[in-house]
């Protein structure tokens, strides 16, 4: 088990939240870069698998690519280079770099700190941090039934393919996809009603009981140590940010 997994889940959540805040608010590229280094350090401590992490990051890069490419050409400022007659500004380039660094740093830190946490563990930690019970239950129900709904979607999709449906452009295709999502909605609603019935059958009257021990264990030595190290790291990000602006 890695060091990160031995931490109290609450420590991991708080560290991730504070890091994301500090990184997003960091005013200079240098400070953001220090943040990225911190995130990578956390990833090393958490022993994240390199390949899988890069693949997950690639999804994020794909999502940002268009914005990053557009920024140098759309932000007005000191022209730095030109491409096909369009001039790219230094300010735009800086902004693009900032966004790329921040997004990757926050993503890597999240993978490292909360990526390997099971949903029930996270739900419990959120409750104990004082997050509203309603939100936590919404979160837990979502994680519980996402896979059920996905299975339902996959079954419907398979049934369509079994009858020679191929996505093309055309009214027939759009209508069929419309039916697919309509049917998914109907089934989800019916599923929700059946779950509600099943819950009432077991005496549910609107309040969720909990099986957790409410023993107020304070942070352990490991958590305090990790907290101190994170605080030092974040102080460094802030110091660099203040010094270089």
């Amino acid at each position, binding site marked *: 088990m890695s060091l990160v997994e031995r931490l109290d889940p609450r420590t991991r959540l708080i560290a991730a939240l504070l890091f994301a805040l500090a990184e997003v608010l960091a005013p200079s590229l240098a400070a953001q870069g220090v943040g990225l280094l911190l995130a990578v350090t956390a990833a090393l401590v958490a022993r994240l698998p390199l390949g899988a992490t890069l693949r997950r990051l690639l999804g994020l890069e794909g999502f940002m690519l268009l914005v990053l490419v557009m920024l140098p050409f759309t932000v007005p400022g000191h022209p730095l280079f030109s491409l096909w007659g369009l001039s790219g500004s230094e300010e735009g380039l800086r902004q693009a770099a900032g966004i790329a660094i921040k997004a990757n740093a926050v993503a890597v830190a999240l993978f490292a700190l909360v990526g390997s946490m099971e949903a029930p563990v996270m739900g419990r930690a959120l409750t104990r941090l004082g997050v509203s019970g309603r939100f936590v239950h919404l979160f837990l129900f979502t994680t*519980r039934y996402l896979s*059920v709904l996905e299975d339902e979607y996959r079954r419907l999709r398979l049934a369509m393919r079994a009858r020679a449906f191929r996505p093309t452009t055309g009214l027939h295709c759009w209508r069929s996809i419309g039916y697919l999502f309509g049917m998914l909605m109907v089934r989800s609603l019916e599923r929700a009603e*059946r779950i509600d*019935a*099943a819950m*009432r059958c*077991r005496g*549910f009257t609107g309040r969720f009981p909990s*099986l957790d021990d409410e023993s107020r264990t304070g942070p352990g030595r490991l958590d305090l140590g990790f907290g101190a190290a994170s605080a030092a790291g974040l102080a460094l990000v802030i110091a660099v940010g203040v010094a270089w602006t």
Partner: protein
Amino acid sequence: MDLIRLERVSHAFDAAHPVLDGVDFALNAGERVALLGANGTGKTTLLHVMVGLIRPRAGSVHAFGRERRAEADFVEVRAKAGLLFQDADDQLFCPTVAEDVAFGPLNLGRSKAEAREIVRDVLERLGLGALENRVTHKLSGGQKRLVSLAAVLAMEPEALLLDEPTNALDEATRERLTDILAGLPQAMVIVSHDREVVERLATRRVTLANGTLA
């Protein structure tokens, strides 16, 4: 002494096609009644009427000693008549097996320590002890069915209403579940198309057709 008694119960989801049309039914202590009938004849509806999930258009429901009318009346009925749903995914909504089995007892006002005790005991009795801390949605279909039975039994019901309990189970799990059910003391209503299960468990059979029982 009957545990559940339905008198002249009628229900229709749309007025032109009544599902139940004057059904009389009684479940006595110690009985295991097989409720038979073709698809769509209202067998599930009848089970849902018994525990008040569906309020019939006409007729009356008597359960555990008195007539039940309002939602509040049925809260007690649902604790005493455990309904096992057709699809275990509907029933297992808690993150872990232990929490799901404890859900009923905690709702009935048991303390956390008592609920833990019950969870361990029920899972042990059904041979599911190893699953206690597993995440519910990662269980196999057969495990889900057995755990949802455990969740129902944890409420210590006096009667069991089983909606196609062996549906879509593999041979081994089906055998195991039938053995478990055969060893339970509770009165049961069993909706099933599984001939072997009916033959092994039922002490009486009734068939629902055209809205009435025969």
